[in-house]
């Protein structure tokens, strides 16, 4: 049994929303954040993101595929989980999950198909036998890669990105809403919560892409495109500033208002969450990357390539820890405090094995990367190399642009 300081309601000493419910917003955060990056290119024409646009979309897709698993694993009756989808009770924020998740999944699958359509057709034409049948099935019977068809693709992608971006924002904003709209818990109940979740989703998504881009470049043996690294760092910095500001605002307002819950929340933050909130969320994951990214952004032109790569990658890794700590502090922190507002329970330590354990969480985090690897094997994440290498550079470049014309802003 957990130790209680002060007085907790007798049923309030359990952490019902476990590590899996920490993982759920963490994973959907990557979905939304990565989609924001791909939209910056496809929708807002930020061409500096071209090198990571396809990687970002595949990342969003890979994380979305596992996003519902932590929820499923957490349920007392996983076999009834489907009821949320088929018999939703619409006054519940959680009932929105089915609609938002499946709606966004449909949009993302369509967008992935349009973006990779040319690739699919090319692969279908190149291969034989079963492989050919597989790609032919993926191509859905159309093999038109003429300029007109590509133009249609392009318009469809823009349209889908236009629907997908608010979809991704709502999918994640809604996660924040699930917490922010619980009036019983003063640590959760704030209208800022969905906004904080969204901003930190952007931070985690961009940070993940900074790291992934470095890793992928290393694996492919080419140097990361520096304007892209700079742009990612700049946007990461921007969203990190917004996130930290909002997170601080949340507690400053409580403290300044001297709200009835502040006494217990301040105790929660300085005792039970001292490490995960003060140290990890605010200093190691907040202040330090803020400074590192400020260096990358403000001193961009003076930085050597390797310094820029290193600084931005370290900052991004710290940001990933920041966002995880934030999820932890919200989800678990809110349950360490009793609704009697008189007591705190001792630390929550997740189990190692079991359905909601640490190993499962690691597996859930690893799964999207396996999916990404499979995605790369099947469709190829990197832009296709121009085919005729013998011709002169200028012409090759033109052709490459034409081949990858799907993505032209």
């Amino acid at each position: 049994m957990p130790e209680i300081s002060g007085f907790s309601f007798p049923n309030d000493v359990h952490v019902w929303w476990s590590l899996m419910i920490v993982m759920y917003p963490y994973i959907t955060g990557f979905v939304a954040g990565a989609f924001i990056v791909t939209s910056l290119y496809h929708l807002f024409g930020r061409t500096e993101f071209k090198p990571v646009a396809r990687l970002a979309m595949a990342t969003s897709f890979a994380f979305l595929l596992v996003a519902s698993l932590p929820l499923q694993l957490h349920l007392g009756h996983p076999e009834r989980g489907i009821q949320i989808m088929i018999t939703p009770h619409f006054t519940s924020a959680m009932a929105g999950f089915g609609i938002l998740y499946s709606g966004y999944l449909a949009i993302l699958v369509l967008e992935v198909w349009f973006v990779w359509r040319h690739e699919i057709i090319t692969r279908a034409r190149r291969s034989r036998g079963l492989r050919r049948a597989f790609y032919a099935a993926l191509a859905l019977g159309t093999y038109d890669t003429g300029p007109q068809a590509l133009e249609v693709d392009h318009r469809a992608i823009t349209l889908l990105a236009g629907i997908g971006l608010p979809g991704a924002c709502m999918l994640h904003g809604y996660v924040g809403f699930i917490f922010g709209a619980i009036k019983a818990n003063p640590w959760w109940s704030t209208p800022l919560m969905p906004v904080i979740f969204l901003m930190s989703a952007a931070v985690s998504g961009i940070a993940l892409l900074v790291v992934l881009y470095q890793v992928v470049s290393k694996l492919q043996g080419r140097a990361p495109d520096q304007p892209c690294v700079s742009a990612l760092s700049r946007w990461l910095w921007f969203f990190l500033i917004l996130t930290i500001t909002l997170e601080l605002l949340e507690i400053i307002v409580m403290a300044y208002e001297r709200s009835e819950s502040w006494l217990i929340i301040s105790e929660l933050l300085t005792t039970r969450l001292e490490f995960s909130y003060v140290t990890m969320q605010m200093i190691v994951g907040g202040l330090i990357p803020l400074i590192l990214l400020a260096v990358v952004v403000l001193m961009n032109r003076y930085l050597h390539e390797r310094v820029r790569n290193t600084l931005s990658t370290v900052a991004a890794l710290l940001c990933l820890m920041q966002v995880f700590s934030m999820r932890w502090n919200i989800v678990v922190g809110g349950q360490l405090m009793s609704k009697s507002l008189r007591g705190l329970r001792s630390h929550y330590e997740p189990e190692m094995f079991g359905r909601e354990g640490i190993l499962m969480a690691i597996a859930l985090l690893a799964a999207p990367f396996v999916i990404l690897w499979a995605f790369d094997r099947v469709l190829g994440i990197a832009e296709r190399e121009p085919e005729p290498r013998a011709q002169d550079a200028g012409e090759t470049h033109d052709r490459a642009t034409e081949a990858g014309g799907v993505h032209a802003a």
Partner: protein
Amino acid sequence: MAPRPTSLQVIPEQRTGATAPECGRRQFLADALRLSGGALVLLAGGSAADALAAVAEKPRGEAYSWDEHLYAYLIDTSKCIGCGSCVRACEAENKVPDGFYRTWIERYVIGMDQTHVDSPNGGKDGFGPVQVGFTATKSFFVPKMCNHCRATPCVQVCPVGASYRTKDGVVMVDGERCIGCAYCVQACPFGSRFISPVTHTAEKCTWCYHRITKGLRPACVEVCPTGARQFGDLKREDDPVRRAIAQDRVEVLQAHLLTEPQCYYLHLDKEVR
């Protein structure tokens, strides 16, 4: 601060034993009469089976209609002696898993500047003496349970509609439908719900719906030796609980959350949340 009164402690336990599982005094007498009738049949040459059948086929009365009732609960904190009978009766009646509580009692020991609150084992075993490091000026017990709120957040947030409020005003969980997501547990401001380690679904006080729909009182009310807990029907004009709510100065817990609790309190202190 009230040490456990030894004389009172015995009485409720006897009562718990006597009243379980579904007997009020009136009900007991009625059953006894029917049984004696059965015994007469037996003496007159009938078989034991006939006698038992006579008991089993007792007239059920009119069928229960939930449109004719609207229940409410009244707790007079000044009458509670912290004996814990209600918590024990609830556990026995509803098979509440150990360490979880459908009802519990809180003890408040209050001085001019400080407050001590505790609820050892939910008050199930009564309350032993307590030492506080300040001069206590008042002390009292507060029984707690699900408030069966009219505008309840737990029903609102249930994603599959497993939590619902009956027409007669009782908030219930359909254990066949509950997916065990615990959203309702988080949304209840009073800590009245829990996920049962046995059924893996949300559970809570039902005001002993299986009893009240048969005209009995909830187990906790039945065993309360001081009448601190009262159960009433707002649709009955002569109901004492209805009268108290209508005419006395009653309070509800955490009124600022606007959940419209249907557990009303008499003599509630400002320290109670």
